[in-house]
């Protein structure tokens, strides 16, 4: 299949899936004869061409495991009025801090989060659960068997991250290099797990 044809099919599928996004796996099922490399090349070119061409109002963004067609940021003032899916209000500072702690420290219990923040995080956790940004990933061992939380693919999507690897390292990580590094290594595995379970 020619790259032109692949281009047109991916463009069409990106349009059809809209907000939901198109997963690489799905492209491969529709185009079983194309290699991942071919698909990557086509999408790479699509991205850079559309970005560079100011006549294009659309752009391709990364989502966990795939791609999504969105309007360019410069179109936001016009797009807002037309979007079928209204943007929800930004997360509160409490929710943001809580989800940051979960992303870097998962799996993590409410008590740990409360300790780090120095205040109760129950309501923030509830909001994050409802928004689907976090989920229960297990129970702590020992008495109480506290619920452990982790982030979901929705979290990655919400913050425009392709994977947890895209998250910047914690600023003071140098203070306790070993502990942080381990924790960081765990993310990726963990998140892979999380994606599977979703």
């Amino acid at each position, binding site marked *: 299949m020619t790259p032109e044809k692949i281009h047109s099919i991916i463009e069409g599928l990106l349009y059809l899936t809209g907000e939901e996004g198109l997963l690489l796996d799905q492209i491969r099922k529709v185009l079983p004869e194309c290699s991942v490399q071919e698909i990557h090349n086509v999408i790479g070119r699509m991205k850079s061409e559309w970005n560079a061409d100011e006549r294009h109002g659309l752009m391709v963004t990364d989502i966990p495991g795939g791609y999504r067609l969105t309007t360019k940021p410069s179109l936001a003032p016009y797009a807002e009025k037309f979007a079928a*899916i209204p943007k929800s209000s*930004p997360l509160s500072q409490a929710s943001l*801090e809580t989800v*940051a702690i979960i992303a870097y420290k998962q799996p993590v219990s409410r008590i740990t989060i409360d300790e780090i923040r120095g205040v109760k995080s129950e309501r923030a956790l509830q909001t994050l659960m409802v928004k689907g940004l976090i989920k229960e990933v297990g129970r702590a061992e020992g008495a109480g068997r506290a619920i452990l939380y982790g982030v979901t693919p929705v979290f990655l999507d919400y913050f425009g991250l392709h994977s947890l690897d895209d998250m910047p390292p914690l600023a003071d990580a140098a203070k306790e290099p070993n502990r942080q590094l381990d924790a960081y290594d765990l993310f990726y595995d963990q998140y892979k797990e999380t994606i599977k379970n979703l």
Partner: protein
Amino acid sequence: MEYKVKIDAFEGPLDLLLHLIKTLEIDIYDIPVSEITDQYLDYIHHMQKLELNVASDYLVMAATLIAMKSRMLLPKPEVIDDSQDEPYEDPEDSRQALMQQLLEYRQFKEAAQSLRDNESGRMLLFAKEPEDLSRYEREDITTIPKSERATIYDMMRAVQRMLLRKQLEGPQNTKINRQILPIGAQMNRVVGQLQEAGHALRFDDFFSVRDRIHVIVTFLALLELMKKDAVFCRQDENFAEIIVDLGKGAAAYDTGEDTFNY
């Protein structure tokens, strides 16, 4: 110092401490306990409208700071006697612990800020609703293997999320739909039901639809009909069944449809 910043500007005592450290240009790695305690207490005193449950977190920190400060003023005992009921707590250790706590919290505050930037960027991107592809679908869903289906449990969770979402979306407005069940229409229905039956009916017979609005409107309709002598109610003794029958005014009552169009 001006105390114009409200308590809701801070996420908690740690956040407030970080704010003080920043504005007072204190070295976070060498926190002067005495100064920070005084400033913190000062701030707390000026926060007029502390919500009670929020306040407790701030007060616990205040107590911790005061304890630390006072221990620092005392000379360190020359011989540390571990056999005492309350083992000696080195204020320097507490100071280090507080520093660590603040450093860790600051890390995540910065991480949160960076996520905030991501969020703002993401909010500028818009996408359309996914197209309904069901016209391309031919699959009979009952052929989907059980393991790949949604479960009742998924459904319950969906409901739970929906209820929580609505709860978080703010105050609930009870919506009374005036078109659905005007009281006048319900009065007609009650009378019609009695006429059709040709005899008295039990009170419960009028409440077959277990919908809140329906129950309320039907009850109001009965009261209104009683007032107009169109029906009368009888109860032989306390808690006995209430019997409803047509009254003298049943033939010529006015529902006042406009008046009672709730």
